[in-house]
Every structure is written in structure tokens, then in C-alpha cells.
């Protein structure tokens, strides 16, 4: 089986390494998570409920006794942020897919995570402050607007996927053309495409951070509105920033882990005959797959949100 795999690898390294990457990951995912995954989901949702309750209890406590409970609220919020990013946080799937499939460095991954989390907190704070304090909207309308902003975030995820896939395809065609002219001469020309285009990368990074952070964390919106109702809005703002800090740290850790995993897999094949052009082609194939996964995730989240926004009697 493994021997056969390597034979295929030698003949058509591009396809097979990309395929193998997905198979290895997919296999591990299926094998370890599949049987207990739904149960795990249930536990995560249960934990989320617990955290929501804990947060509301602490906000209430702050309203009654600011000095004593202020710091505890921040600690609970930070913990909620850590949990949220590790469990129900949406940004996680996006950053893992993005970093596993792109050529970004660890530093960039960490930067994206932190920017996205900060941005997410600021969006929530800005949105609630503007809608409630300035426009004096009903909380119900604020919640609805939050849902709509969330939808925009999902569209951004789809667009990011389209962009990444398109770029990967373009690079593949380009390398195909290259290959015809410099048939397997592994000179410096070969590595040309390796040098990341700084400008594009920065744009891309911002795009990823935006599409991850555009969605205001629903927990943060709840906290802000609740704090406003019981007249401790500024503590709500601080709590939201603490949630963002917790989310950012966890996401950054995940980013580091996915870059490690990606490099490790790359390293596995670097030693084999597949090198130079082949490795580049492989990473483009992985990027292409990553783009498609992002499109798919974005679409499924969008369609779900759309259904709630269209009609929900309690929204």
C-alpha cells in the first residue's frame, strides 16, 4: 500500500502529494473524531451555555459591586474567549484551512489571528455603540443587524476562497508554461515563484483577517447588550476586549500548530525526488484545495445564517 503510494508519488508528484496530504489529514480526522465527534459537539454547546450563564452572572455582580467583581468579569471574559476560539469560534476553521494551504509564515499566521480577534471585538463594540447609543435602536433590531453583518462576513469567506483558488490556478498554469521552456533545470529561475509578493501578501493577510473578524462574536454582542440593559456598558466593552484577547491567543496558537503541521508534511516530501517545480506545484494544489474548502465553509455558514435572518419568529 505504502509502496504503491510512493510509486504514484514518483510518477505524478503534484497530484499525489496534494492527495496524500488530504488523505492523511482526512484519515486522522475521521479515525479519531468521527465516532465521538457529534458527542463532542454536544459537550461544546453545553459548555458554551455554561459560559454564557457565567458571564451574565458576573455582569450582574459587577452592576451591584463594581470594585469587587470588575477583575473577575475580565478573567471570565478572557476564559470565554479562549474557549470560544478553541470550541465554537468560527475563525478557527478559516485560519487553519488558510495556513495549511498557503505559504504564509508563522509570524504572519500569528499576526492574522491577533488582528482578526481585535477587529472582531472592535466590530462588536462599534456596532452596538453606534446602533444602541447613537441610533437608539431596539435591541431586537441590533441583534438582527448583527446577524446581517455576520452574513457579510461569510460572503467574505467565500470570496477569499475564490481568490485563493483563482490565484493557485493561475500559478499552476504559469508553472506549466515555465516547465515547457525550462524542462527540469532546477536553477534559480525555478524558485522564482517562491519569493512571496510582499504587497499581495499583506493584502491577502488583511483579507483573511477581515473575513475572519467581520463576524462580530455573538457572545460579545450578548454581553454588550446585557451590560447596556443593566447600566454597566463600559464593563461590557472591557469584557468584549478581554474576550478578543482570549480568542486571539488561542487562534495564534492554532495558527502556529497548523504552520508546523504544514511544514512537517512538506518536509516529508522535500527529501524525496519531488523537489523544485514539483514542490511548488504541490503547494499550489494544496492552495487550490484550501480555496475550495473555504468557499464551501463560507457557503454553508451563509446559507444557515440566511435562513435565520429570513424568518425567525424569535429574532
Amino acid at each position, binding site marked *: 500500500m505504502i509502496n504503491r503510494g510512493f510509486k504514484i508519488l514518483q510518477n505524478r508528484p503534484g497530484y499525489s502529494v496534494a*492527495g496524500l496530504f*488530504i*488523505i492523511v489529514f*482526512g*484519515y486522522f*480526522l*475521521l479515525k479519531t473524531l*468521527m465516532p465521538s*465527534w*457529534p*458527542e463532542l*459537539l*454536544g459537550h*461544546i*454547546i453545553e459548555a458554551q*451555555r455554561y459560559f*454564557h*450563564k457565567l458571564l*451574565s*452572572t458576573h455582569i*450582574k455582580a459587577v452592576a451591584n459591586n463594581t470594585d469587587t467583581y470588575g477583575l473577575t468579569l475580565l478573567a471570565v471574559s478572557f476564559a470565554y474567549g479562549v474557549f470560544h476560539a478553541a*470550541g*465554537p*469560534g*468560527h475563525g478557527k*476553521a478559516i485560519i487553519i484551512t488558510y495556513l495549511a494551504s498557503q505559504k504564509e509564515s508563522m509570524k504572519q499566521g500569528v499576526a492574522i489571528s491577533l488582528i482578526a480577534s481585535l477587529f472582531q471585538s472592535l466590530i462588536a463594540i462599534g456596532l452596538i455603540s453606534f446602533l444602541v447609543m447613537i441610533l437608539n435602536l*431596539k*435591541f*431586537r433590531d441590533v*441583534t438582527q443587524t448583527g446577524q446581517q453583518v455576520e452574513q457579510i462576513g461569510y460572503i467574505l469567506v467565500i470570496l477569499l476562497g475564490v481568490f485563493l483558488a483563482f490565484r493557485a490556478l493561475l500559478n499552476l498554469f504559469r508553472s506549466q508554461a515555465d516547465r515547457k521552456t525550462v524542462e527540469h533545470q532546477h536553477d534559480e529561475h525555478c524558485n522564482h515563484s517562491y519569493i512571496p509578493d510582499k504587497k499581495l501578501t499583506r493584502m491577502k493577510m488583511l483579507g483573511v483577517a477581515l473575513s475572519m473578524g467581520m463576524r462580530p462574536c*455573538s457572545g460579545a454582542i*450578548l454581553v454588550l*447588550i*446585557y451590560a447596556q*440593559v*443593566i447600566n454597566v456598558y463600559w464593563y461590557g466593552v472591557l469584557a468584549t476586549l478581554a474576550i478578543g484577547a482570549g480568542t486571539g491567543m488561542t487562534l495564534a496558537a492554532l495558527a502556529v500548530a497548523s504552520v508546523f503541521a504544514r511544514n512537517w508534511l512538506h518536509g516529508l516530501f522535500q527529501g524525496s525526488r519531488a523537489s523544485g517545480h514539483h514542490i511548488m506545484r504541490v503547494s499550489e494544489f494544496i492552495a487550490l484545495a484550501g480555496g475550495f*474548502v473555504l468557499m*464551501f*465553509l463560507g457557503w*454553508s*455558514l451563509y*446559507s*444557515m*445564517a440566511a*435562513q*435565520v435572518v429570513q424568518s*425567525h*419568529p*424569535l*429574532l
Partner: protein
Amino acid sequence: MLFKKSLIRILLLASVSAQLLAHPHTWINLQSTFVLNEKFELTEIKQQWQFDEYYSAMFISDMLNEYGADRDLAFALAGENMVDSLLDYQYFSSLSVDQAGISIGQPSEYKLFSVVIDGADILTMTMTFSVSLKPNIKLSNIEWSVYDPTYYVAMEHNELANLVIQNGEKSGCVPKMNRPEPSEETIAYASSLDKTQTETQGLGVLFAETVRFGCL
């Protein structure tokens, strides 16, 4: 072939997981009371919905802004509104007798109010539905479930104490709560939501409780 299949499985699982983890936004604690007559026929189902602290705080604050500071009047008006808007969704409730769905119609009585729990005003709604078919609880296979198909709201009885059979002492029947264990099949079922858009399918079904009765 195997590769393609597992890829599809992963994608399905990933998408449903991502959707699930973006939800729920609101929780409702449920209580269902099944009223029997002396012939052990199910004549009424009384429901109590208790919203979470966030939804309660938001709702009550909005309500007082909209309908004025007279709380009783405000609750009456907002309650009417809420019951009206739930009509199209059959109050998220479904009753079936011997596998056949039975319409519960509109509530014969309802009330929206608040109770103070742990120092917080908790929004609470009660609704009473009459069951015209009057199935015998000992002879029929009765199933009751309350859930939001979109899973925007998680609705749960949480514990058996929230299921009550009124006048049921002599019937020898006890309520049983079944929580589905989401499997790959149900996940695939839930993810078919986008294609069909029917009311009964959706994420909520993955965690929907079903109440049945066990009789001596």
C-alpha cells in the same frame, strides 16, 4: 472511490460542525405538562418556555420601550405578538400519535410574564393546547417534541422533572425523554436543509428531544 467518499464525509461533517458551532444564540428551558382525563386520555398539553437571561433582558427592555411602562399591559401586548408570530411555526411543537402527526392548533390560553430567578428578570411564557383527538396514553404511541429547526434557539426540557403527567398517578405511565445521538446519517439529514428548505429538517433535529411514555 474510498478517497472521494471520505472527502465528502469530512466536508459534510465540517460544514455541519461549523454551522452548529455558530449556534445556538438563545436558550429556552421547557416544561411540558400532559393533562389526562379519568379515562387516561390526553386532553391537553401545557407548555412553559423560560428564556435565558440575555434574551429576557433584551426582550423586556425593548418591550417596555415599545409599549410603555405599564408592565402588565406591555406583557399582554408583547405576548399576543409572540404567540401570533409563532403560529406559522406551529409553536416549534409537534405531537404525533401512532406515527401520525397531529395538529395542536392554536393555544387556548397563553400568558407572557417574568419571574425573578437569581436576581434576574426571566421572560416566561405559558401556552395551553387542547388535544382534540384525545389519544389514550396507555394504548397509543404518543410522541411530543419541541425544537427550533434552525437551532438558533436551543429548546430543552433538561431534566425529567420538567415533564409532568397531570392526573397520571393511576395511569401507571411515566414520561421518557429521548435525545437523539447525532450520527453521520442524521448529520447528512440535517445538512440536506439547504436543498429542500422544509420545516422539519435542519440543525435543530440533531439535538431535538422526543418525549414518549412508558406505561406499566
